[in-house]
């Protein structure tokens, strides 16, 4: 095709579009930058509103305190355990199930699919699930966070569609003719071709485990087992609300905030960063899989 000269109206469109996208990006970025800067600044500056974009009077005190706090460290360890273990269990169950459901010659496939899809819209709900966990004797045990929700229906359907459309059937047939059993075909031939979906699934499940707090809150009573997000909830929301209520009641001037509040605010910003960084660092590396994995799976599903 011959190059057609761009119209001036299109050029204008381009510029306006770029400007708008940049504004959008800045709006989304601002709260994140604010928190990062606040975590590095002197709390006096932050609490009096003198810090609004770049860190003022840089200090690492907040991070120092976070790594001194045994509750946070313990929670961090627990979260890593739940995330790694839980995600492995998720993948172990989801991928083979999705693969077999993607095969047309599977006996009772239609029925099984209906059965699976049904749970997307009708589940027992919060209370029956709680009662089930309780009568299984899983209360206050590590397993409940690992096993509960081992397969997410949405993810199962996404992977199934990927296996059905994303893996060329000729390859599987060739493996079969060469004498591979179905299980060996899956492990040796199909899985290496499915890195995209594995990456996306690991990310979905992993982020889910990392960020989950609700099931930990209702099932775990032992403080030694609680994940990071629950510790965060106490530091960030409950304590903060309490402090505000007190301040509001007694009309404390913001300049008179005592040393304790100052220290707490330092920890608050630092702990947000420390808890979110692992996920935020990992996902850009998996971003290239989003196109392939998510698209193939969800668009046709």
């Amino acid at each position, binding site marked *: 095709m011959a190059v*057609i000269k761009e*119209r001036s*109206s*299109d050029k204008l*469109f*381009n510029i306006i*579009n*770029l400007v*708008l*996208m940049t504004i*959008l*990006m800045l709006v*989304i*970025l601002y*709260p*994140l930058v604010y*928190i990062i800067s606040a975590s590095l600044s002197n709390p006096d500056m932050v*609490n*009096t*509103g003198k810090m*609004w974009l770049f860190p003022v009077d840089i200090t690492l005190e907040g991070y120092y305190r976070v790594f001194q706090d045994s509750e946070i460290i313990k929670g961090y360890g627990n979260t890593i355990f739940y995330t790694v273990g839980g995600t492995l269990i998720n993948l172990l169950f989801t991928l083979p199930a999705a693969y077999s459901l993607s095969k047309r010659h599977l006996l009772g496939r239609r029925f099984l699919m209906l059965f699976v899809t049904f749970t997307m*819209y009708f*589940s027992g*709900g*919060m*209370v029956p699930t*709680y009662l089930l966990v309780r009568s299984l004797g899983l209360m206050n045990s590590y397993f409940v966070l690992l096993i509960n929700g081992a397969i997410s229906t949405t993810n199962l359907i996404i992977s199934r569609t990927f296996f059905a459309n994303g893996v060329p059937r000729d390859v599987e047939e060739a493996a079969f003719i060469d004498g591979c059993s179905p299980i060996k075909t899956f492990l040796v031939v199909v899985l290496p071709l499915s890195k995209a979906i594995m990456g996306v699934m690991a990310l979905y499940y992993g*982020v889910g485990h*990392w*960020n989950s*707090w*609700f099931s930990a809150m209702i099932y775990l009573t032992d403080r030694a087992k609680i994940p990071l*997000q*629950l510790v*965060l*909830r106490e*530091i*960030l*929301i409950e304590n*903060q*609300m309490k402090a*505000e209520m007190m*301040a*509001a009641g007694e009309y*404390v001037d*913001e300049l008179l*905030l005592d040393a304790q509040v100052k220290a707490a605010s330092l920890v*608050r910003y630092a702990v*947000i960063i420390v*808890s*979110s960084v692992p*996920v*935020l660092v990992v*996902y*850009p590396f998996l*971003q290239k899989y989003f*196109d392939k994995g*998510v*698209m193939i799976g969800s*668009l046709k599903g």
Partner: protein
Amino acid sequence: MPIPVIVALMLNEVKQIRYKKIIQTVTYAPHFISTVVLVGMITIILSPSTGIVNFVLKSLGAESRYFMVEPQSFRHIYIWSGIWQNTGWSSIIYLAALSAVNPELHESAVIDGATRLQRIRYINIPVITPTFIILLILSAGQLMSVGYEKVLLMQNDLNKTTSNIISTYVYERGLLKAEYSFASAVGLFNNVINFILLIFVNGVARKFSDTSLF
């Protein structure tokens, strides 16, 4: 709901590949922040004594307000923070649909003298309409069970008039007060309503367009 569509349409027009990648990475980021951290950030930023929003209000001469306990602010905080968190992520699926557009369509449109806006209007928007409808139907099925984790975290005694939703009510009655049978019934009833909504919206979609879920 329509904001991710607009973002996807605009992002699709950004021709600088590297810049597009950067925008994508940045706009996806909030999606990976946990609900606890998100609500924590909201609490910090809206804090009446130390939050940045109230410093701006004060410097403009307004009174500082405690947004987190105001019933009338709850909906705004909930919705706008949701948009902040999920716009970029939800636009992925539309971007995918847009990348499936046959480039020949655009080429011939250019030869026929169509402007960028006309090409968006007559090529890109029709392409993503089916995706939009499907997602609309699916979200109708979840209308009655909005993200209760976030609501639960944002809830306090003072804003309960607007922040109490079915799921948090089920949690309160069922798990905190141990009224298992009553709470299960409420939950099941909620499911039934969701299902009816799903069927209804699906029927409407089938009637007025060619796309429907089943």
